């Protein structure tokens, strides 16, 4: 069974099968196009159509048929001749008679979507400028690299230049003579008639891109992501193992770890590991799933991962909350000591510190012979403990020189806070008129960081001169910027006056004013 159509050809109604109709339409279109250049176009085509109708009628009559099938159409068109046959019969001599010679030789700018990489702008320009596509594309890529102007230009051209859709447009684009052979050739090419908007085209293109070339790029990116993710995961595991291995030694006394109580350390490490490792694993698995569209793990495994992650987060949050509760109460004690009176004091920071027993173990130095040795720490690590040392110079009321050190800390209870405050190690040394301060406070071994602070107040009578070196100024509760003189000295000179600490040159200026 086949579908048939009724056609009116040469004022005759013919029943024709669908496939036969399609063949006939193609043939008649070719013929029409062939003669479209001729002034007698209409008459010739009508003659031919009439003749075809007559032949169909003859066939139906002689073969006692009702319907024209594809074989009949082939027979008729063979008898009538293909456009190629017409062409050989009417070589050059006649051609001037058919239309203007310029027809079809005028190039028009269209986008060539048949040879497009993106939207056929470059291919279209190549046709128009009669250059090879690759050179246009090379120029386009260069303009993209030079500040990306090429992308904008491309999009503008994409929107402005129409797409070559019909055969004649495609031929005009190529500058092909709109002759019969060109027409016939172009007719053999698959023909997309659907005209769509710019956006639809862009989305369609994106889809094709993701299915084709794009999927390769996506896969490359995916492999890259998986590699990085796996590397980070391995690094995380290695560092956790390494951390657990060296727990007992120095690491837990370093600042960020010295917050965590020793009994929580293992469980919190586990919690933190789960919190960071599972999302990494999830990203890797998700990338595999999206880029390679297979499911590396089943739902149960995903669920287990989710539960583990939530557990990890829970552990971390719980212990973090517990630890933060140990910052609840604050305690402080003050320790005052007298300082030998001098007319002038020099304040310095001592970066060297004496070897402790722990140091000698750490650096494998004979533990019995550590006394008197010094570690020369050229730069002390700010990260070691948050800046927690401050120094202020005040006027002494009783005319004596004294140094008071205020140790403070936090803890879950007042007692604990006081205990924590007692864990502070701080070195302050007087050598004649030189007062040497330690750069930072130290915590006794295995003491936890609970926001320990030391505030020192040096009380000196009126008229005492203070020379503070550069580093001390960082700790000094004094607006020393005003005292900076142009000489850029190592020391700034301050004097205790009735109104408090003043710059030496400021006081001199004050006195001369009086």
């Amino acid at each position, binding site marked *: 069974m086949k579908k048939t159509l009724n056609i009116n050809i*040469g004022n005759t109604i013919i029943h024709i099968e669908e496939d036969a109709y399609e063949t006939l339409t193609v043939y008649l279109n070719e013929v029409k196009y062939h003669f479209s250049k001729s002034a007698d176009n209409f008459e010739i085509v009508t*003659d031919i159509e009439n003749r075809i109708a007559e032949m169909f009628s003859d066939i139906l*009559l002689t073969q006692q048929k009702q319907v024209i099938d594809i074989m009949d159409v082939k027979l008729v068109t*063979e008898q009538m*001749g293909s456009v190629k*046959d017409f062409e050989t019969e*009417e070589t050059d001599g006649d051609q001037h*008679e058919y239309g203007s010679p310029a027809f079809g030789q005028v190039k028009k700018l269209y986008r060539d979507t048949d040879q497009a990489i993106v939207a056929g702008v470059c291919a279209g320009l190549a046709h128009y400028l009669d250059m090879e596509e690759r050179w246009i594309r090379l120029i386009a890529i260069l303009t993209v690299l030079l500040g990306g102007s090429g992308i904008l230009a491309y999009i503008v051209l994409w929107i402005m230049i129409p797409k070559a859709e019909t055969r004649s447009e495609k031929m005009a684009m190529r500058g092909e003579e709109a002759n019969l052979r060109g027409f016939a050739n172009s007719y053999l090419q698959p023909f997309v008639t659907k005209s769509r908007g710019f956006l639809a085209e862009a989305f369609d293109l994106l889809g094709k891109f993701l299915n084709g070339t794009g999927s390769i790029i996506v896969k490359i990116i995916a492999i890259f992501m998986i590699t990085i993710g796996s590397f980070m995961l391995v690094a995380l595991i290695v560092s956790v193992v390494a951390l657990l291995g060296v727990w007992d030694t120095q690491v837990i006394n370093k600042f960020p770890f010295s917050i965590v109580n020793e009994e929580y350390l293992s469980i919190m490490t586990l919690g933190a590991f789960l919190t960071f490792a599972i999302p990494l694993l999830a990203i890797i698995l998700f990338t595999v799933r999206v880029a390679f569209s297979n499911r590396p793990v089943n739902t149960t495994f995903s669920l287990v991962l989710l539960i583990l992650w939530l557990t990890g987060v829970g552990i971390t949050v719980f212990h973090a909350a517990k630890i933060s509760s140990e910052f609840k109460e604050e305690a402080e004690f003050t320790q005052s000591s007298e300082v030998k009176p001098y007319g002038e004091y020099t304040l310095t920071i001592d970066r060297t510190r004496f070897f402790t027993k722990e140091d000698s173990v750490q650096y494998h130095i004979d533990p019995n012979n550590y006394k008197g040795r010094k570690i020369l720490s050229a730069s002390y690590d700010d990260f070691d403990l948050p800046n927690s040392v401050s120094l202020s110079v005040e006027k002494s009321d009783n005319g004596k020189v004294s140094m008071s050190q205020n140790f403070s800390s936090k803890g879950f209870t007042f007692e604990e806070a006081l205990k924590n405050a007692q864990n502070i190690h701080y070195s302050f040394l007087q050598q004649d008129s030189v007062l040497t301060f330690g750069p930072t406070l130290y915590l006794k071994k295995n003491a936890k960081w609970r926001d320990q602070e030391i505030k020192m107040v040096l009380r000196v009578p009126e008229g005492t001169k203070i020379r503070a070196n550069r580093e001390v100024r960082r700790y000094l509760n004094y607006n020393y910027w005003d005292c900076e003189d142009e000489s850029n000295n190592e020391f700034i000179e301050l004097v205790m006056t009735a109104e408090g600490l003043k710059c030496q040159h400021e006081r001199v200026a004050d006195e001369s004013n009086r």
Partner: protein
Amino acid sequence: MIAENTQTQMRKGILEYCVLLIISKGEIYASDIISELKSARLLVVEGTLYPLLTRLKNNGLLSYNWVESTSGPPRKYYVLTEGGKEMLNQLDNTWSELSSAIETAKQVAEKTTNNSINLNKP
């Protein structure tokens, strides 16, 4: 290619002449012209005839009458105009000139061939 081109040119000129000759016999329908041309092996496909007829008609050599047909729509029957008859006479003359020219040329060619053969004999 050159041979083909020459053949096509010759065929084309002769085709026009033959069409005029066939029509000069009396009013005739296109498909009858075709069958006559086919028997004379001058025409391969029908499609080439229609542009030719139209051109000859537009040049004032032919005209046609619509004649009712028993089996379908009316048909075009072609006749020669006065201009066409004149043209045919001219073509007749040209043809006899051409054919005699070709005959002469062929005879000359044969003679030279014979002579050259004789000369080669000892």
